[in-house]
């Protein structure tokens, strides 16, 4: 069947308004390429099932898409036919305020969630970049988290249940709406972070948190990463319960603190939630640690949940147009050595990266402004070589333009053979997001 004919059939199936052709599908460009047949925006779970069944029957490749705020955090698709947008799946299906449980379809955005939960004094404790525009389904599929993961956990810790349309176009439910669930395999964990390669997540049930009474962040300035790391190590044994602990290099601090706090090498930001009494007490503890570890200065920031200060920190790690985002993950104590590798490799490539490091999670994010393509490849290869000796470290390389999977998933992926067998079982015909995943899955 020709692409035109397939396009028509999809329109017959879902209605004209729900299907856009390749020419109008500008909003549905994934990994630098538009869908060959078109973009569909089903308005119900049943329509998603119908659309996937149709695509499966006609051997069309499908990429599920939410707010596309993290669409580049995958490898390039090896061609695809249909973008399946969840934007019209925008219903909140259940909100049990008294049980701190919230269920919504995938197209509901972060901003909509905030508007709904804030009046009731509750929050969904996720803060990835572009949170207001990001969709709930997209955040779960991309395992998207932000600085507050240190205090509240990753998406996988907040998902209680979800519904997925599988490669056969059938609806599969996993988990439930209760706090604990040991019935059967925890497929929520499998689908969370699966980057659309196993199915279309259509609905998610989240665990909520009470909104904190107050939030504040304190910043300590250090002359070196080693000094800052000593302060982080001291924090581990102190009576502190931080929401986020982030290390920023000078470039990151310049973007983040336009009020002049940017002459030092490293900025240690610790954010806390609680009552005023708890914040004051933690501030005192944190400042005494700064003194003991030779900090060169300190500052205080308003860090209200979803406030400007909070959001702009999260957004620092957005992938810049024409630039590169490097994400390294390892032991928190390896942060200084990982950062030094990044800085050296970037210096060789002639770029000054913005570096953020999660001191609790051990995740280093380096945002590198425009680098010529050839240089990027050499730099990525050099970095891969440098970190390959550190056990457990993973390196991922992302850019707005499509990068091959060998480059994106730069370090060996433990368990890739098992992952391939899972993909073979759940999506044997490779309907979903081909090429987007490690190993080219």
């Amino acid at each position, binding site marked *: 069947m020709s692409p035109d004919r397939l396009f028509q059939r999809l329109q017959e199936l879902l209605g004209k308004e729900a299907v856009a052709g390749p020419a109008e599908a500008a909003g549905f460009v994934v990994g630098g390429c538009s869908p060959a047949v078109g973009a569909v925006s089903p308005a119900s779970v049943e329509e998603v099932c119908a659309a996937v069944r149709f695509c499966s029957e006609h051997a069309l490749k499908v990429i599920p898409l939410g707010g596309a705020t993290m669409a580049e955090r995958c490898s390039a698709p090896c061609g695809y036919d249909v973008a399946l947008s969840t934007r019209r799946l925008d219903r909140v299906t259940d909100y049990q305020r008294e*049980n701190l449980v919230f269920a919504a379809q995938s197209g509901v955005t972060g901003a909509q969630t905030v508007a709904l939960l804030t009046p009731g004094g509750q929050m969904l404790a996720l803060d990835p970049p572009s949170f207001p525009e990001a969709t709930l389904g997209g955040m779960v599929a991309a395992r998207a988290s932000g600085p507050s993961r240190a205090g509240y956990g990753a998406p996988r810790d907040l998902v209680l249940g979800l519904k997925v349309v599988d490669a056969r176009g059938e609806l599969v439910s996993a988990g439930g709406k209760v706090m*604990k669930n040991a019935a059967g395999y925890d497929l929520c964990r499998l689908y969370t972070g699966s980057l659309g390669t196993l199915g279309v997540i259509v609905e998610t049930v989240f665990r909520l948190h009470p909104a904190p009474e107050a939030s504040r962040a304190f910043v300590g300035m250090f002359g070196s990463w080693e000094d800052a790391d000593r302060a982080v190590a001291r924090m581990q044994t102190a009576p502190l319960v931080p929401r986020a602990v982030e290390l920023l290099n000078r470039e990151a601090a310049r973007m983040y603190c336009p009020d002049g706090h940017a002459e030092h090498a490293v900025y240690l930001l610790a954010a806390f939630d609680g009552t005023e009494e708890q914040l004051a007490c933690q501030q005192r503890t944190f400042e005494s640690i700064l003194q003991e570890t030779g900090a060169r200065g300190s500052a205080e920031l308003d860090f209200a949940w979803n406030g400007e200060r909070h959001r702009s920190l999260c957004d620092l790690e957005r992938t810049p147009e024409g630039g590169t985002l490097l994400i390294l993950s390892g032991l928190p104590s390896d942060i200084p050595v990982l950062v030094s590798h990044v800085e050296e490799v970037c210096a060789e490539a002639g770029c000054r990266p913005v570096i953020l490091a999660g001191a609790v999670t051990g995740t280093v994010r380096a945002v590198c402004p425009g680098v010529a393509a050839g240089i990027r490849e050499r730099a990525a290869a050099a970095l891969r070589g440098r970190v390959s000796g550190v056990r457990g470290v993973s390196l991922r390389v992302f850019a707005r333009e499509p990068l091959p999977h060998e480059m994106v998933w730069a370090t060996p992926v433990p368990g890739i053979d*098992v992952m391939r067998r899972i993909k073979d079982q759940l999506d044997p015909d490779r309907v979903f997001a081909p090429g987007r995943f490690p190993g080219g899955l």
Partner: protein
Amino acid sequence: MLQSADARTAPGDASDLDVALTRELASIVGPENVSSTTAERLVYEADGFTMARRRPAAVVHPASTEEVQKVVRLASAIGLPFVARGAGTGLSGGAMAPPGGIIISLTRMRRILDIDLRNRRLTAEAGVVNLKVSQAVAGHGLHYAPDPSSQSACTLGGNVAENAGGPHTLKYGVTVNHLLGLKMVLPDGELLDIPGETEDNPGYDLPGLITGSEGTLGIVTEVTVRLTPLPQKTWTALAVFETISDATRCVSSVIAAGIIPAALELMDANVIQAVEAAFHFGLPLDAQAVLIIELDGLEAGLDELGARVRGICESHGVRELRVARDETERTALWMCRKKAVGSLGRLAPSHCTQDCVIPRSALPEVLERIGGIARQFGLRIANVFHAGDGNLHPIVLYDDRDREQVRRVLACNGEIVRACVEAGGTITGEHGVGVEKLEFMPLIFSEADLAAMDRVRAAFDPRGLCNPGKVLPGGPGCADLVLNKKAAI
């Protein structure tokens, strides 16, 4: 309880395995580490769920991941089914031997391999006892948060298999929230090695999928877990209520007020009687329910939070709220809770613990319904459970020598499970499906849901040798188990 056919017909004193195979197993682990006599195998007929039993053909006790791999390769080569076993404290029959199969016991693998205080990680073999982890790091102000009641016996490997919880998981999460990496011997003997250094291994979340898979996807031999700082201060109180419904309404109100205690446990009158007889803590024998409420965290603000909780308790008619004065009193209170199920032996010769989860707001209504079900079947039910999570543990008291009672217990359990599902809940919160809950899986999962799980299982164990007949209904060996359970009554 009656034994399964194959156990009853087991020949004299010899293993059901042929001599050559026993010798091969012995060549891997040493002859002293293969249990093959009837007496030795008898011990392994059941785990903590004693309503289903099957004697293993042999029990092998490997001492290393490599030995587990060799045993599994051998089993795989000849199509011999196998199941891993930790301390055997599981409560759903998950560690019962598959028909004609062997048990691979991991209790010799009990070394703590690495403690990384700076990064708050600990790596240990699967047979390490849960409590040993917290004990190993307590001096450094850290602990391992999942604390099932059996924590002085149960193993880390078993905890991963069941995604074990405990009273403090209300605030700190269950096993899966604390597991960073693992080594698992796949059903073909290959090794899956997910490093625990990074929280962000790219690709699918395999440790997350494996946790709670009840030993059906492979044999976890080593884990890297997250260590959690001990709180600066703890506030523990015993709240005494005249009625169960006052206590459960109080629980719902605490959660609805946005307070997440470290633990929030309920014990009813039956449990209070048994516990008091055993430990003489001074629990009020005329109360219908007590709550153990624990708050922890920073010293700053904790007493204010305690006052808020006290206010909520008072608005639900609390008769007395006793705050533990010191660590000794707190430990004694927790011992009452953790040994509660064990002390029930004073009330009846046998008991069977249920494990369902419901929305917390439904606690008053469902507890009343469970009381009604107990009356309907003429059985006595004791309740001791993780109220803050909505994780119920109705414990049916009975005499297992009376077949008619056993029949009523099974029917009563079924009614309880159905009541919880109807209230928007699930069939198990922390004990797993094992063989006990197989028949209830279709209550909460559609055919498509179960088919997806079957496919996941096939990705790991296409030949169905690794703990077959557990977790998923309709799998190999499943019909046999249902028959087995029916034969028991």
